[in-house]
């Protein structure tokens, strides 16, 4: 693969060797166009971390996030963390500590002071690392990413090591578990699973003895892209750069062979032999779908042949209801992928495209730079692990809406059929019998509301990525926070909107108004604004101010505000005006207020 600035090297496709793959990332970093950073990442770690900065910039760019990186001074992990103080955000701190930093010489000779001595050492060092976390998290603007500890492959005790509950490896595992628990309980603290990354990369290759000896380089440079990709996934998800849809080629990806030539009975797909690789791949794809990833097919084939495969082939794991959009025919792949994005109302940067043909991958990369086009493994036997482990769809939480998304997109297909039958838009909207339920934010809906803040880009007025803690803080400060749930005759869209308003004397300021793209195009936003204006009026307000930030993709929100007929706010796309000037609730929508 020849890397380009927009499509840097894929970790799985890097050449082998202690430095080779890292050099590909560094070269991609040198070719990266300069631009404004969305976020500054500070590094703090043990040993030499040089090169991680370049890998992190490239990995984040792959995920759609531009970052600046502040390098760590060598060997000053404690000083870097304890001495940093609060700094203006948005910032993240990546803590790349390791077992050597934690235990020093005890890593090679853990039982020199007996089991009690080891327990004391582990407890003391664990308390220290948590003190460092406390210090870092004292900066309220900081997101902290902490690496788990990569254990050694064994100790001097050999097989007896695994019989000891008070042993070194059991102790490290317990420290990792408690670190993960702490991270899970804190929305600003995230575990980078270095242990799992090292296992995937190869534990025996994670560190190179010569590089460690001569340069205190504890993570082999070739492993840095893998670690950077893991951290980038978290940072991108935190910043709302979330991919939502997996677009799949069919021949060579969903099954082996060429459907048009081999026929459904001739393709490789089933529980045995070569077909098993494709069935396992489909199962791994279905697992992604079950957690909310939208699936689409883009294939050069006869549409009827593909539909028959989906509906009838006994080896298929994926079925028609799992596929939300299809572009099947004889046109170009770039055109097909573009059509899928448009049909699903997603930006191209929300898509991942898998195709076994290098020419198709090149075409999509060239035409749609936002689409992530990974290099699939050379052998289909590796496809399932490839899609399972790639981390293309990081999510900060899994909500009921995610788990129900499959059914929701199936309902969407029904809706589209009904739209085609309805003839005109008015009849379609009226026939949908849409209900817009507006309710105060509750503990039960807070996680989904925070997820919407991260995932929603198109109808989002200020693009503020409020996490659960920020929503709580806002509510405690008196903000009026309302969630929006939309349903219709075909099903429930789930919680798909949020409004955060700050009541003031006479004027309510709408800090954030967002709706999922799934419910756009039916004037739900008018109903939400109408309900909020009514609430503001009942509280004695006479006007609304709706600030808006011009983002790369929130044109729909800006167009909505511009169409309200209010006055511009502070010369930007925001607006303000009297409650009496706002439109009423569209007649085809029914409002339910809690």
């Amino acid at each position, binding site marked *: 693969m020849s890397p380009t600035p927009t499509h840097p090297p894929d970790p799985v496709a890097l050449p082998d060797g202690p430095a080779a793959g890292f050099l590909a990332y560094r070269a991609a970093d040198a070719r990266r166009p300069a631009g404004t950073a969305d976020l500054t990442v500070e590094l703090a770690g043990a040993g030499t971390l040089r090169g991680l900065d370049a890998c992190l910039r490239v990995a984040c760019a792959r995920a759609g996030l531009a970052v600046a990186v502040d390098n760590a001074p060598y060997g000053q992990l404690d000083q870097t963390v304890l001495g940093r103080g609060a700094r203006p955000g948005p910032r993240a701190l990546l803590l790349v500590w390791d077992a050597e930093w934690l235990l020093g010489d005890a890593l090679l000779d853990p039982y020199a002071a007996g089991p009690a001595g080891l327990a004391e050492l582990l407890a003391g060092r664990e308390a220290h690392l948590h003190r460092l976390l406390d210090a870092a998290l004292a900066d309220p603007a900081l997101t902290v990413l902490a690496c788990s500890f990569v254990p050694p492959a064994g100790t001097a005790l050999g097989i007896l090591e695994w019989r000891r509950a008070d042993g070194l490896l059991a102790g490290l595992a317990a420290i990792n578990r408690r670190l993960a628990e702490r991270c899970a309980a804190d929305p600003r603290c995230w575990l980078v699973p270095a242990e799992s990354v090292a296992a995937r990369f190869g534990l025996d290759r994670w560190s*190179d003895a010569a590089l460690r000896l001569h340069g205190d380089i504890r993570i082999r440079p070739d492993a840095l892209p893998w670690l950077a990709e893991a951290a980038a996934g978290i940072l991108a998800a935190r910043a709302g750069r979330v991919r939502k849809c997996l677009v799949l080629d069919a021949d060579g990806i969903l099954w082996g062979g060429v459907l048009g030539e081999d026929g459904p009975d001739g393709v490789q797909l089933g529980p045995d032999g070569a077909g098993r690789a494709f069935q396992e791949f489909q199962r791994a794809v279905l697992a992604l779908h079950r957690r909310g990833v939208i699936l689409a097919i883009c294939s050069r084939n006869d549409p009827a042949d593909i539909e028959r495969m989906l509906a009838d082939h006994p080896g298929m794991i994926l079925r028609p209801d799992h596929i939300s959009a299809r572009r099947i025919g004889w046109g170009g792949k770039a055109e097909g992928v573009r059509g899928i994005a448009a049909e699903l109302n997603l930006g191209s940067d929300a898509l991942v495209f898998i195709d076994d043909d290098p020419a198709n991958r090149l075409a999509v990369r060239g035409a749609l730079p936002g689409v992530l086009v990974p290099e699939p493994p050379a052998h289909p036997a590796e496809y399932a692990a490839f899609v399972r482990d790639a981390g293309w769809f990081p999510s900060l939480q899994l909500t009921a809406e995610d788990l129900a998304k499959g059914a929701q997109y199936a309902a969407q297909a029904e809706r589209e059929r009904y739209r085609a039958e309805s003839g005109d838009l008015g009849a379609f909207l009226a026939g949908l019998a849409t209900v817009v339920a507006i309710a105060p934010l509750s503990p039960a809906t807070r996680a989904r509301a925070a997820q919407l803040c991260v995932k929603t880009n198109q109808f989002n007025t200020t693009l503020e990525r409020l996490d659960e803690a920020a929503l709580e803080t806002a509510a405690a400060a008196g903000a009026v926070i309302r969630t929006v749930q939309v349903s219709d005759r075909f099903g429930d869209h789930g919680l798909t909107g949020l409004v955060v308003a700050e009541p003031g004397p006479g004027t309510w300021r709408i800090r954030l108004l967002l709706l999922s793209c799934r419910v756009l195009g039916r004037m739900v936003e008018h109903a939400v604004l109408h309900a909020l204006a009514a609430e503001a009026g009942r509280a004695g307000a006479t006007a609304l101010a709706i600030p808006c930030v011009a983002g790369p993709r929130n044109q729909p929100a800006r167009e909505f505000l511009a169409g309200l007929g209010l006055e511009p706010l502070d010369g930007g796309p925001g607006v303000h005006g009297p409650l009496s000037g706002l439109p009423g609730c569209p007649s085809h929508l029914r409002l339910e207020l809690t």
Partner: protein
Amino acid sequence: MSEDLETIVARTLGIDRAAVDDRLAREREPAWDSFNHLLLIAEVERAYGIRFAVDQPAAIHDLPGLRAAVAALTGRP
């Protein structure tokens, strides 16, 4: 081996291939710092299938020295 030594040096140090000649030395080339020196040694070992002695990398200061060390291990001038 698909790359010659000069190309490996240029790629590893991130410098122009045309700048790699026998005058190239660590003390004169800012990109040839201690970190990149270690990467260069690793890349050369990978490309030629050789392993330098533990104290050998520290004694390599310029391109002719690197070339001589490689030749000594591969047996090819």
